[in-house]
């Protein structure tokens, strides 16, 4: 049975008092996230082909919606071109769309500062602006 004493924490307290505190000084300093950190979603509009797989596998409802972004002629038919619109306020940054996109158009950045007062700033629709 170890001997019971009072104030056994004092030694460690004095030692810790003279070490550097581990508080990260964010927002007065950098947040130092790791390389694999899953932050805000980003799309490369050039690589996206509008296959729609990201919208099917996304676990968070109504995060990815496929919209009609244009039309193109194939032979004598006119087909719709679909592209995804991302409602990033619903996104849980799981990365399932990134894993499942065969064309590598999606990636998760290290940006986590997504707070905003206007929801519309979090709607990412740059994939719909395709070169005609």
């Amino acid at each position: 049975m170890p001997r019971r004493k009072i104030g056994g924490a004092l030694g460690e307290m004095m030692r810790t008092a003279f070490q550097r505190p581990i508080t990260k000084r964010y927002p007065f300093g950098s947040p130092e996230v790791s390389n694999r950190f899953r932050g805000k979603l980003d799309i490369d509009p050039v690589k996206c082909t509008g296959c729609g797989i990201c919208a099917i596998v996304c676990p968070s409802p109504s995060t990815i919606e496929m919209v009609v972004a244009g039309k193109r002629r194939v032979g004598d038919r006119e087909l719709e071109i679909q592209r995804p619109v991302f409602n990033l306020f619903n996104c849980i940054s799981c990365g399932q769309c990134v894993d499942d996109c065969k064309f590598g158009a999606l990636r998760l950045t290290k940006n986590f500062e997504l707070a905003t007062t206007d929801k519309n700033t979090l709607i990412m629709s740059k994939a719909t602006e395709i070169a005609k």
Partner: protein
Amino acid sequence: MSEEEKSPVRRKAAAGLMQYSPENIVPFGPVHPALKEPEYFKLVLEGERIIEVYPKIGYVHRGIERAAQDRTWVQNIYLFERICGICSFAHSLAYSQTVEGLSTFEIPRRARYIRTIIAELERIHSHLLWLGLVGYWTGFDTLFMWIWKDREHVLDLVESITGNRVHKSFVTLSGVRKDLPDGIGDRIRTEMNYLEKRVDFYKELVSTEETLLTRTKGVGRINQEVARRLCPVGPLLRSTGIARDVRVEDPYAAYDEVVPDVKSSTDGDIASLIVLRLEEARESCRLVTHAMERIPQGPVRLTVPRIVPAGDNASHVEAPRGELIYFVRSGGKMLPERVKMRAPTLANILTAVEMLKGRPLADVPVVLTGMDPCFGCMDRIAVVDVNKQKEWAIRGEELRQLGIQYYKKGNMQ
């Protein structure tokens, strides 16, 4: 005759609480600084001593089992890991294991090892979190801050591997989603060495600090007879001397090759629970280092069809709090038919209530949190009709219609 007098069960239930005057009943929760999650405990006090405890659960019920029926098999992984923040990996692991059991493929060995490593890292983080909270509840803020300072090492390590500190989103239906990053072996070794030294320091501190010992020694004592009657799981069970652990009795992931040494103690009080969890954390450090040494090369996931064959399967894992059971029924479709989950806290809550009787009020936070509650995992609603002696689970639409009828009859307040 009134409602109470008609049914003997109802009479007894009414008498249970009614015999105490309202001045003696102190509500603990649902919102209370001592509880991380809301649950309602009606404490019947006499001065400072507790005579009876009536728990009422259901405050964090979110209908997750029902929500699982609307999502595909892979989407459900992300749903289930969000049941709890502390044992999130255990939930997604248990779910994946259960679903993989319905299919015929074998997951790669490297994936098994990686799952083991992350599961043990989560166990370390959970036990450190709990120990820090014990410090907080007994008024020992310094211990709380120090332990959470060391817990940051584990969380940063997990972030480097999986991308997030809490909801790791790392498990997928045939393994893990990504391989370990390069150079992580050295970092894991360094961090585990550091953590082993710190765990030894904390073990020394909590075994000798007088003020902490007076709050936890002899408090909430249970023995094997109580344990066999009320069936707790996890460290609560192991503190009574019954050394059961799912990782050893029914090995999953890589536990058949990286075998944990099950720790137990015989005192059964909170002080021994503290030491037991610290020893388990230290054992987890050893397991992580051991797994990193033995990890084989190979793929970490397979390409598998997104539709799971029909059938029923149940599987369990050792979450940091105890045995976590998942049951899955598949109808061979894109969406599961039924997923049922039994969290360890549901098995422990009655034991915790038993530990409370006869103790002074000041022990309530220490004891209730001695079982390391995770009410988020635990909650569920069942409908019991006392008169007809019948019990069933109610469906959402039925509940909605019941509410409409009730208020249509003019029961507005």
